[in-house]
């Protein structure tokens, strides 16, 4: 892929919109698949965006998921305005969760969201301010190092 072929997209995710959880992930996946991105990369992007989407819906008022594809990687940024995460180390531990029953009814909220995002990312960064919101960045390489 040359630099002219780079592309991306931006999606708004509304907090507590549980019905549509996963829609943005599906849309991004379809786009990447249509553009011929390798299947294993597309699956990783789908998992990362799905969990990021569920996190925004579960814990924030509103958020945005951006993705950008260039010749080396798919970069995903998820930014939200919301309660933020008081202790990121704790939130990254598998099984740690502050989810309510609505989130659990969807099959999420068992403390696997952020650990999953980290697991499927080649590079992962997260910054959160309590009472303001959270920004996370995930890079998934399309070519080997």
């Amino acid at each position, binding site marked *: 892929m040359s630099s002219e072929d780079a592309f991306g997209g931006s999606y708004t995710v509304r907090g507590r919109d549980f019905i549509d959880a*996963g829609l943005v992930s599906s849309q991004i996946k379809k786009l990447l698949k249509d553009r011929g991105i390798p*299947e294993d990369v597309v*699956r990783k992007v789908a998992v990362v965006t799905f969990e990021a989407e569920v996190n925004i819906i579960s814990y924030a008022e509103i958020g945005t998921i951006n993705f950008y594809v260039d010749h080396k990687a798919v970069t995903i940024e998820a930014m939200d305005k919301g309660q933020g995460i008081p202790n990121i180390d704790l939130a990254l531990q598998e099984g740690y969760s502050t989810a309510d029953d609505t989130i659990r009814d969807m099959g999420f909220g068992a403390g*696997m969201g952020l650990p999953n995002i980290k697991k499927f990312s080649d590079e992962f960064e997260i910054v959160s301010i309590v009472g303001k919101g959270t920004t996370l960045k995930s890079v998934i390489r399309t070519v080997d190092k």
Partner: protein
Amino acid sequence: MNLSQLKEILEAEVICGLEKLECVEIHTAFSADLMSDVLAFARSGCLLITGLTTSQTVRTAFALDIAAILVCRGKEPQAQAVEIARELGIPLLRTEHIMFETCGILYREGLRGCICDVQAGDKPCVE
């Protein structure tokens, strides 16, 4: 086995994807009600066995290129889940068997886990 054989073995009802019954071959499966675990451990091409009936089940299956969804414990997938499964072309079946029985019957018939254990990662399940 293909989905048509799976339907017979489990006395399952096909909710959508009737046209794919003969052509979709299943060799591996993953069973869970927790979609985060499915996202973490399931592999493309496997059968997803679950008791979760929401649209997130279908979206999770789509994210991972899962071949088909089998809802167990006699549960009815929600209308929106069925609609999305049709839209995304993912076969959706349901069985009255509980998850343990469903898995046991399919294992006896030759299906294996899409991974053996979480440490083994992608190493295939062979005996």
